[in-house]
């Protein structure tokens, strides 16, 4: 394979020089056929689009060169949509995959988008893109019909060429039809998309579109962008959140050659043309802070959370809880705990801001460039039309790159120095400013009747959030209550910022629910897979579970069987997941080793099956971290884990044998892919530990200490 055989990255070719004057982007899009479409809420869109069209938020263009370009505000951070979005568009337009480019995240070229999170790109954006593609194809057929003087019914399209079915010589290419034209259409949604039986490109496994850039080191992440005259900034940070600056002495840093010191109240920064020299200058600043008094840590946080919890809101309910209690033959009541987790993407947050006159160009590692654009505009006092977020690769997000504090720092410093300024977090800053997955508590009371059928479910979740809290078993008397339904809390709840973390809420909720279901299966003396199937009304979930069991080679036995097998189900972003695991538990050390993971998933229509499997593998591997090791330690508002020596994330040596199965369900709408499989990992491990050694760990992560403690209690 030569370099030519691995295709390059689209959006770089479509980026315009940053000196280009600002313009109405419709003008910039140039000649050709433009098709506009809308994804999501029009009202929300109208609020965001001052002075710009508000009836669409994505568009595609068939250019005079025959290239098809989709402009979207989504970003690529490893999840692979740069590949799958192309597939969808090429399929519906009947053009070669190679002729499709996806321009992402450039706020001047791309219409407004809320952000890249919630597994929405394929699930929500995808169907709209396909419809737009189908509609654009219909426009091309109309034009071709006129040109070829042939009725539309007699025409067909292959590789971007329209021809007469009865006379293949009577043909015309999209590129020629687009030449010299400026046709703008709004998608009306009246043209239907292809049926799965007609697919040629959707459903095919493709390697990553951006692979070549990434294996050669050429892919540009934010901190890789260099512009002449730029300075690297390092900022004085407090030891704990909400600390008070007591004294500061910058004289030694000021004396360093070519070092610029900026001081605006307690915002103190040093800048230099080399980031390492700026770092050295920072170390010369003598600074004293007073930390706030707060008696909280990773151990007593749960009592605190229960104390400050707001009133609960019932998410779902059915039947009568009291009746369920009185009719239960056996009940169990347990409390589950989950600590704070860091996003820990390997790329720390970074931003580069370049101000020219009243305009700013910004490169930043962010999942929501359009939000960032507004934030920068506000920080600079610029009109938001004068701020442009440039396209860059994002080195992992997982929800963590929806907070953009580093961009504001860079914008502030660019304004104060009059130079382009880069702010790139150190790993310590990355941990300090992370919006952690929240610590949370779940309390569950559940019961079975005399036949082993679930008949009671009373579920209370504190601070994890309500995503994935609703149980999906067939239980006559059930109630789900969320105390703070989001992953952020009111002031005084968490000692630092919390936020969405890959499949937010659902990792904690699935851990608690599926542990409790397993407890009930053991009480009923029924094999945990059989017990779930008996209590699931949803045939699709039964099918997913059976598929996983078949692949695993599951032989029914009630737990604890001593085999170390565990099972769990979950639903996230519309996708149904079942995972089965085999673990080995070292009774002396408490160490849990995951040997094998089998995961089946029903995610509806699959655009790029290999891409979907990669996401499943990523979820399962990453999930081992929160299941076994990851727990942010802190004292008050000071974060104690600030690098990978004490905050351990999964490594090669942790890797189990991973097998993934995608259920064939091409007739259904596509569902989430980047998050669902991760939600089951904690629960399968907990259930497998119980199956192995007969004791249960009720807190994530299931560290050796906690396993040993559980064994001691017996």
């Amino acid at each position, binding site marked *: 394979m030569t370099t030519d055989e691995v295709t390059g990255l689209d959006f770089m070719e479509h980026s315009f020089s940053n000196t280009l004057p600002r313009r109405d982007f419709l003008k910039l899009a140039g000649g050709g056929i433009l098709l506009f479409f809308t994804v999501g809420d029009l009202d929300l869109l109208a609020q965001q689009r001052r002075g710009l069209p508000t009836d669409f938020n994505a568009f595609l263009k068939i250019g005079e060169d025959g290239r098809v370009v989709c402009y979207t505000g989504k970003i690529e951070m490893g999840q692979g949509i740069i590949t799958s979005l192309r597939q969808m568009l090429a399929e519906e337009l009947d053009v070669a995959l190679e002729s499709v480019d996806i321009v992402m995240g450039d706020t001047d070229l791309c219409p407004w988008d809320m952000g890249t999170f919630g597994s929405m790109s394929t699930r929500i954006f995808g169907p709209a893109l396909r419809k737009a593609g189908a509609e654009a194809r219909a426009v091309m057929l109309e034009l071709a019909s006129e040109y070829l003087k042939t009725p539309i019914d007699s025409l067909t399209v292959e590789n971007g060429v329209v021809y007469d079915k009865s006379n293949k010589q009577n043909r015309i290419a999209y590129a020629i039809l687009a030449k010299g034209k400026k046709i703008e259409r709004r998608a009306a949604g009246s043209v239907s998309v292809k049926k799965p039986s007609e697919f040629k490109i959707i459903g095919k496994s493709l*390697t990553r579109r951006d692979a070549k*850039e990434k*294996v050669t080191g050429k892919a540009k992440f934010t901190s890789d962008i260099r512009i002449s005259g730029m300075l690297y900034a390092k900022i004085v940070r407090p030891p704990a959140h909400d600390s008070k600056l007591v004294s500061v002495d910058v004289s030694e840093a000021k004396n360093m050659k070519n070092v610029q010191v900026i001081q605006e109240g307690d915002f103190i920064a040093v800048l230099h043309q080399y980031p*390492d020299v700026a770092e050295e200058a920072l170390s010369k600043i003598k600074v004293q802070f007073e930390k706030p008094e707060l008696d909280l840590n990773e151990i007593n946080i749960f009592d605190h959370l229960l104390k400050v919890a707001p009133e609960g809101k019932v998410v779902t309910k059915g039947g009568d809880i009291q009746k369920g209690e009185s009719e239960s033959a056996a009940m169990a009541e347990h409390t589950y705990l989950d600590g704070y987790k860091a996003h820990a993407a390997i790329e720390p947050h970074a931003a580069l801001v370049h101000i020219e006159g009243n305009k700013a160009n910004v490169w930043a590692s962010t999942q929501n460039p359009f939000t960032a654009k507004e934030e920068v505009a506000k920080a600079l006092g610029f009109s938001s039309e004068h701020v442009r977020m440039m396209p860059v690769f994002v080195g992992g997000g997982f929800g963590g790159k929806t907070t953009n504090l580093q961009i504001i720092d860079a914008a502030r410093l660019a304004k104060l120095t009059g130079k382009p300024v880069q702010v790139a977090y150190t790993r310590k800053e990355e941990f300090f400013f992370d919006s952690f997955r929240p610590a949370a508590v779940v309390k569950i009371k559940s019961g079975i009747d005399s036949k082993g059928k679930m008949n009671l479910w009373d579920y209370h979740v504190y601070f994890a959030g309500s995503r994935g809290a609703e149980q999906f078993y067939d239980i006559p008397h059930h109630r789900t209550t969320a105390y703070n339904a989001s992953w952020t809390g009111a002031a005084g709840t968490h000692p630092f910022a919390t936020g969405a973390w890959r499949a937010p809420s659902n990792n904690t909720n699935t851990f608690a629910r599926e542990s409790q279901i397993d407890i009930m299966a053991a009480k009923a003396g029924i094999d945990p897979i059989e017990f779930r199937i008996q209590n699931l009304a949803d045939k699709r979930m039964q099918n997913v579970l059976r598929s996983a069991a078949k692949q695993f080679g599951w032989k029914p036995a009630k737990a604890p069987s001593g085999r170390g097998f565990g099972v769990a189900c979950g639903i996230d972003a519309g996708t149904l997941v079942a995972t089965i695991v085999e673990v080995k538990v070292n009774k002396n050390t408490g160490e849990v080793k995951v040997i094998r993971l089998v995961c089946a998933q029903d995610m509806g229509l699959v655009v790029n099956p290999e891409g979907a499997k990669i996401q499943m*593998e990523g979820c399962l591997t990453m999930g081992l971290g929160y299941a076994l090791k990851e727990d942010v330690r802190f004292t008050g508002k000071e974060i104690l884990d600030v690098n990978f020596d004490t905050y351990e994330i999964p*490594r090669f040596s942790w890797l189990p044998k991973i097998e993934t199965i995608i259920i064939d369900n091409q007739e259904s709408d596509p569902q989430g892919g980047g998050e669902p499989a991760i939600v089951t990992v904690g629960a399968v491990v907990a259930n497998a530990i119980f199956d192995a050694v007969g004791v249960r760990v009720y807190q994530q992560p299931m560290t050796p200490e906690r396993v040993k403690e559980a064994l001691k209690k017996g």
Partner: protein
Amino acid sequence: MAEETIKFKLNGKAVTLSTDGDRKLLWVLRTDFELTGTKYGCGEGLCGACTVLVEGDAVRSCQTSMKDVEGKNIVTIEGLSMNDQLHPLQKAFAAHDALQCGYCTSGMIMNAYSLLSKNLDPSVSDIVRGMDDNICRCGAHKRIIEAVQSAAKEMKGGMKP
């Protein structure tokens, strides 16, 4: 800052640089030479994103002082593909989808290069042991192992690392 003149070989070319010998190689590569394929991940040698080859050995460039590379032969990810021809490891990483966000990829490939230069027929456990100190958050581990195995096979077939 005491400037000194440091000479070394970078991706096959002799280079000379006047700089503070205590500066770390990572930052010199990324700024003075604008070779940004080598990444910062942790700054303490814990993650491997900054891995480069010094005399054929994988080292953490964030922990390597410039004064220690005097006269040495340094190869970065940019120096791996020659004449637009991808190295077997680069091809294997692309073909096996052994990356997601791609931020740790340069370090992974450089570390694997060093591993394969010492052991052209590694077992899976050799690869796991050899790669264990390079971390990836996206969870591409499974395919990275497959890519390294596949590259090893191709390189055994005559291609020099």
